[in-house]
Each structure stands twice: as C-alpha cells, then as structure tokens.
C-alpha cells in the first residue's frame, strides 16, 4: 500500500509539473485586424517561422507575435484545420478565396503539412479546368498576343480535349 501511495504521489507531482509548464508556454498571436489569439506552444511548433523566432529569443515566458498579414478569420480556419488533423473534408468546405489565403499563410509561416495540403487541394480544383478558369481563379492577365496564344494552343491541341465546363 505504501509503495502504491508513493507511486501515486509521483504521478500527481509529474502531472502538476506538466500543467505548470503548459501554463507558462503560451503564445499570443496578434492578427491583422487586431485580434489576439492565445495558442499553445505545441500549435506554434508547426509554424516554423515563429518557432525560429522563439528559438532565437530563447524565452520561457509567454510571447506576443504579430501577424500583420493574417486575418483573425483565416487564423481561426487554420486552427480548425490543425485541430482536425488536416482532414480533407474540412479543406473541401473552404471557399476558393479562403483556400488561397490559407495557402499563402502556410507559406509565410512555413507550415509544411498545411502548405502541401492546400497547394495540392488547389491543384485538384484546377486539374481538369480550362485556361480561362485558371486565369480567373488566380486573377492573371493574359499577356500573350492572340497569334502567340493560337500557336501555343495548336502545339498542344491534345491537351485541350476532355476539359471540364467552367
């Protein structure tokens, strides 16, 4: 009984220590629209840009990290994706604009898993689409002359067969 009691004490002590360390290590992210989101240190681990900053400052206390390029809406979407373990179904529910913005943030914060997930999801979206759809999707201005474009289309005529309706 005595032995088990000691064991129990040790477990509780370890738990308390863990909670204490957890409580200390929080990161405050300040979004472009001025919202402060407090996240756990484990969440920031995947954000290599922030992680590198934290390693450089080497602090144990909670830190504040400004994200002038990220809106609170997009950041909360990213948190949802992370807590949902990057479920493809969650990605499918995003709007085209959300998907593009998340992809940009993933690149900016150097989040590899999220970058792969969103880049491949965008690729899936445009995979079988027309050239016009892609220009509209990425807001691209066609800078070919009509002659140049006709010539290029002729070279790869076969690649224009079986394309989805826009």
């Amino acid at each position, binding site marked *: 009984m005595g032995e088990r009691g000691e064991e129990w004490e040790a477990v509780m002590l370890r738990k308390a220590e863990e909670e204490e360390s957890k409580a200390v290590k929080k990161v405050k992210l300040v979004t472009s629209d001025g919202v402060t989101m407090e996240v756990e240190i484990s969440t920031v681990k995947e954000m290599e840009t922030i992680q590198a900053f934290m390693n450089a400052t080497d602090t144990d206390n909670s830190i504040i990290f400004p994200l002038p390029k990220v809106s609170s809406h997009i950041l909360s979407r990213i948190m949802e994706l992370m807590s949902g373990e990057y479920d493809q179904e969650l990605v499918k529910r995003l709007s085209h*604009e959300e998907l*593009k*913005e998340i*992809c*940009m943030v993933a*690149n900016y914060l150097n989040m590899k898993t999220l*970058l792969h997930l969103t*880049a*491949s999801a*965008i*690729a*899936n979206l*445009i*995979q*079988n689409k*027309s*050239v016009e759809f*892609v*220009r*509209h999707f*990425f*807001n*691209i*201005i*066609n*800078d*070919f002359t009509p002659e140049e*474009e006709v010539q*290029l*289309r002729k070279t*790869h005529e*076969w*690649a*224009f067969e079986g*394309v989805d309706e826009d």
Partner: protein
Amino acid sequence: MASAPNLPEELIMEILSWLSVKSLMRFRCVSKTWNSLIFHPYVVKSHLGRSSRNTRVVLKLKDLNDEACTLLSFCSIPRLIQNPASSFDDSRQHPVKFFIGSCNGLLCLHDSLSIDECEEHWVHFWNPATRILSEPSPCLRLHSHVYRTKSCCMKFGFGYDDRSDTYKVVAIISDTRIRQMKVMVYGMGDTCWKNILTCPSFFTFQQVGYYLSATVNWLGVSLEGDKCGTSANKEILEILSYDLRTDTCRYLPVPDCIFELPFSEPHLGVLNGCLCVSFDHKRTNFVAFLLKEVRDETSWIRLLNVRYESLQIDGSLHVVVVILCMYGDVLLLANYEDLEFILFNLKDNKVERTPSFSNPDYRILSFDYVPSLILPG
C-alpha cells in the same frame, strides 16, 4: 476576387508540381509567366518526385533482338494485373524504332543507317507525356571492318546520372573475336560520343539494358571460360552493371546459378526498385532473385523458387517464362510456350490464369515509367 492579393510565384510553382502533365501543357497558355514556370527546374524536379510510380511501359517485340518492329504502350500496374491483355489493345499502341530504355519519363529510341564504308547509329529522346521529341543525337560511326563481321554486336542502355545531372546513353560494342568490348557514352546535349573504356567481352542475353539508381544493367555471361573454373558450356550468370556516376563497370554474379547452355534464356528486369533475375533451373523450377541494392553484391535475396507443376506448366517442353510486373504479393508472368499470362501469389502460391495474348509472334518486356516534364534535350 480582385481584392485578394495574388499568389507569389513560389506558391504557383508548388501548385504546378501537383498537376498532371496534360493539364500543365494546357496551362502553358495561361500567361508568359506560367509558360516559363512550368519548365522551371524546381517545378520539373518536384513534379517528378510527386508523379505516380505505378506505370509501366510495355513493349511488344517481334523478336527480343529484332530492331524492326516494336509496339509500345503505357499501362498502370493495377490495370496490367487486372487485365493484362488490355495493354495490347491495338488502338493504344505506338509503333516505335528500337527502344533503348526508359528513365524519369524519357524514352530513348535508336536508329541506324548503313552507308558504303560505315554504319551510323544515333538516338532520339522522347517524352511521351509532353509529346516532345528531340532532334537526333550526333552519330556514332562504326567502320565496315568492325560491323561487317558476325562477331560484332551492339547493345544499348539509357539512364540518368544524378551526380552530373545528365541523361546518358551507353553503347557496348563487343567484338568476340578479340574478346573485347568498347563502351561508348553519349550525354544528352553533348556534341559527340565518348569512348569511355575497353574491357573483356561479355555476352548479354537481351539487347536493352535496365536502368536503376544511376546504373545501367545487362544480364549475361563473361566470355572468359576458365575465369571461374567452370567447364566450357557452363557459365556463371552475371550482371554487367555500368555505373553512370563513375563511368565504370562492375560484374555481379547471380547466386546459385550455373547457366547451362542451351536451356531457355534467363531474364533481367526491375521490380519494386530492385534488379530481378529470373531463370530456369534444370527444367524443373522457375527461380527469381532480387538484388536489393544495385551497388551491393551481397544484397541478393531469393524472390521465388517454384516447380513448374505448381505453375501448371509442362516443364518437359522448352519453357520461357518472363516476369512482367509485381503488385503487392502478386507477380504477373508471361508464359510464351502456352501464350498465356499467369498471376502468381507469392504468399499462398496461388495460381490464376488469364486470357492468352493474341499474337504468338510477339515477345513482351516491361519497364518502369513515370510521366514527367523533363525536356528531351
């Protein structure tokens, strides 16, 4: 839409690397920037890394050593296993010149011409996914006193040297009279063929070398009878492995196999990223070995040793069995004696026969293929 900032080029490249080659060829028309990004080295490289690796290029040849007529088709491994005969649907086949090899989505094709005093050989590089064909390479010229003798023969191989980032064609010109062979190499984009080395002659069974991890490999026997103390008509089966990184040759003996003429021809292939040697053993068994690491001759493992009865093949006849591909535990075999495909399960030794292939004149070979954006030249 216009309010959102545009994606930077590095992200566009990331997205492009996930698209199919067909979509990418279409999207060259999106803008001038896209047209150049699609062939950016970063995109080409990461696209290759993400391309599915379950496709085979299947060759149908009139004769294994015949240059005249080769039919070529592309087929995914699951489809081949499910319905092997479908890959020989005539509408999906390309007639090609003599096939030398397949590497990173490029195929290398050979052509030749005899004129008075000499014989000229050259190659083309072809990317079937982008449908871009290169100009012919410079000629490799052989003078009549060499090629007009029956003792001379040429074998080819094609592969990628990752150290120098070069696609290389290897030509072996062997002269059995003087028991020597010359190795000539052409690097894609070079202005000429280079004579790399001369070494003792080696008899290879198949014309085409198999590419794997910066090496090109042929299966054959050394023509030095007394080298291993074997008698005149017994030879040690070996792989001649040409290392494209170092431009050197190695000989890798196949374990437990004394090749006894004139039994049926042993075969080389690539299965799941390993070299695979398969051969007949005393007309009773069909045996296959895998070389797990192409630069380590101690890495041989036995894949298969099965009696012909278990494959439901009559071993007393002249048996020719070739391994075409592997999917999970299942091997797809072609049996030329009975003109049929056999599915053999390595786990439970179960045999399944599938509809026979129609034309008895043809032999079939299969190589790894991966659709890519690599420019042929």
